[in-house]
């Protein structure tokens, strides 16, 4: 240390505090003038201290976790009872949800195959399965006076059942689509091919006349084509299945083995059936054709 006289040293010591106070004022002014400098210095210090802070936080978290576990162990009995009650409650709600899901699926299926609210339908119960060895048909008890006509479409909850072939006074006879004489034009939804679904008295009608360069895909949906006047397009029919390569069949959506309640739909198309004329040009139904600005020269009906 530099040897100084006692008075000089005391004077210097007395000057230290005022100098430091002036320095503090300078720091205040500097902090106001350059805020980013203070932020940088603070962040530098925080970076240095961050591992230490981590060391401080880690045992706190461990202790908190340990305390929480001990508290949970103390409450394990009450917790079990609460969970059991909640489980019972949830099982009830699971049942409700499953039932609602089923109902929803059924309603969705219904909505899906009801393309239009306009068609009127008559609901009837299948009273008798009149299938013989060479025919597949059922008898439906329905109010014939409500307006059931020949060639109307019969559907159950899942899909197409068949067509009305004979009308009695209180019942109608329905030719199932599995009957050997049933020929229904269908469309394949994925491969977009058109085909004829031909019944063969088995449970799975064959698919014939499908495009050879565009074969049906296993599992794709089959819907009606709409090429015959009494049957609109898009009604669900079934699913493609290959029993062996090159022989696609349709597995009907409708449970044709045990039909219960079916609906007979009147799409009102029989009203515009044109007269039989060889070589006639097919007239598209006005409802689903582009509205022409001038009267069609072909006329109607």
């Amino acid at each position, binding site marked *: 240390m530099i040897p100084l006289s006692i008075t000089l040293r005391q004077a210097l010591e007395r000057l230290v505090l005022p100098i430091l*106070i002036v*320095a503090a004022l300078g720091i*205040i002014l500097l*902090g106001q003038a350059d805020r980013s400098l203070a932020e940088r210095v603070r962040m530098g210090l925080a970076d240095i201290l961050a591992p230490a802070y981590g060391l*401080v936080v880690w045992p706190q978290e461990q202790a908190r976790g340990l305390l929480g576990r001990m508290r949970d162990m103390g409450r394990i009995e009450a917790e079990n009872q609460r969970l059991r009650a909640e489980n019972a409650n949830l099982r009830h709600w699971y049942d409700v949800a499953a039932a609602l899901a089923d109902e929803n699926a059924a309603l969705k299926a219904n909505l899906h195959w009801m393309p239009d609210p306009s068609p009127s339908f008559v609901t009837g119960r299948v009273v008798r399965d009149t299938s013989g060895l060479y025919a597949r048909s059922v008898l439906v008890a329905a109010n014939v006076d409500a307006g059931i006509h020949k060639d109307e479409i019969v559907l159950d909850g899942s899909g197409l059942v068949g067509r009305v072939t004979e009308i009695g006074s209180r019942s109608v006879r329905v030719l199932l689509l599995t009957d050997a004489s049933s020929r229904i034009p269908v469309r394949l939804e994925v491969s977009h091919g058109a085909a004829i679904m031909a019944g063969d008295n088995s449970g799975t009608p064959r698919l014939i006349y499908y495009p050879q360069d565009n074969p049906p895909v296993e599992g794709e949906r089959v819907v009606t084509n709409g090429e015959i006047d009494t049957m609109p397009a898009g009604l669900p029919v079934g699913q493609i299945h290959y029993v062996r390569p090159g022989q696609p069949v349709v597995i009907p959506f409708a449970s044709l083995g045990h039909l219960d309640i079916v609906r007979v739909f009147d799409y009102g198309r029989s009203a515009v059936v044109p007269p039989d004329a060889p070589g006639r040009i097919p007239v598209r139904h006005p409802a689903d054709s582009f509205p022409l600005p001038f009267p069609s020269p072909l006329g109607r009906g």
Partner: protein
Amino acid sequence: MTPDQAPEFQPGIQPRPSLWRRLDMLSRRGLPAALTGMAVLLLSAPFGLPGQAELLPGILLSSVFFWSVFRPASMSSPIVFLLGMLVDLLGFGPPGVMLLVVLLVHGVALSGRYGFSRAHILVLWLVFDGVSLAATALQWGLISALSLHLVPMIAFAFQWVLGVGVFPLLCVVFSTLGRSIANPDRA
């Protein structure tokens, strides 16, 4: 005044202290500042204690006031400056405010230490109450002026009350320390 501060005034011839004895004396002399710095660091750490941020200025002012009155050699002006800088760097207020406040408290304690050190502990407590009230008011005024709006006073009142409450406890702890492990005479 403790005898270690002005060896010039001590009569008699003393043997030159060995290195270890000097290190021991130095560590005992530096213990108050080290403890204060440790307290500042710990109170800035994320412990999640209630009132932790408000407790820091009270402990800092108490420590600086006590040691400045009873042993200025352990709480010299540069050390107070460093402690104030540390608090300002760890905090998020306008830089330099706590530094200035703590230097002024140190100056007040130094200037009045001959009277304060002889006073009763309750009188000293009252003096500290007044000094820390002024210091807190100055801190509030400076922060309000530098941030250009009136900062709510309630937090500063809480901070002052905490400092007033913690001072007697720290007095007991510090005087015990000052007589035992922080006493350079016992080196």
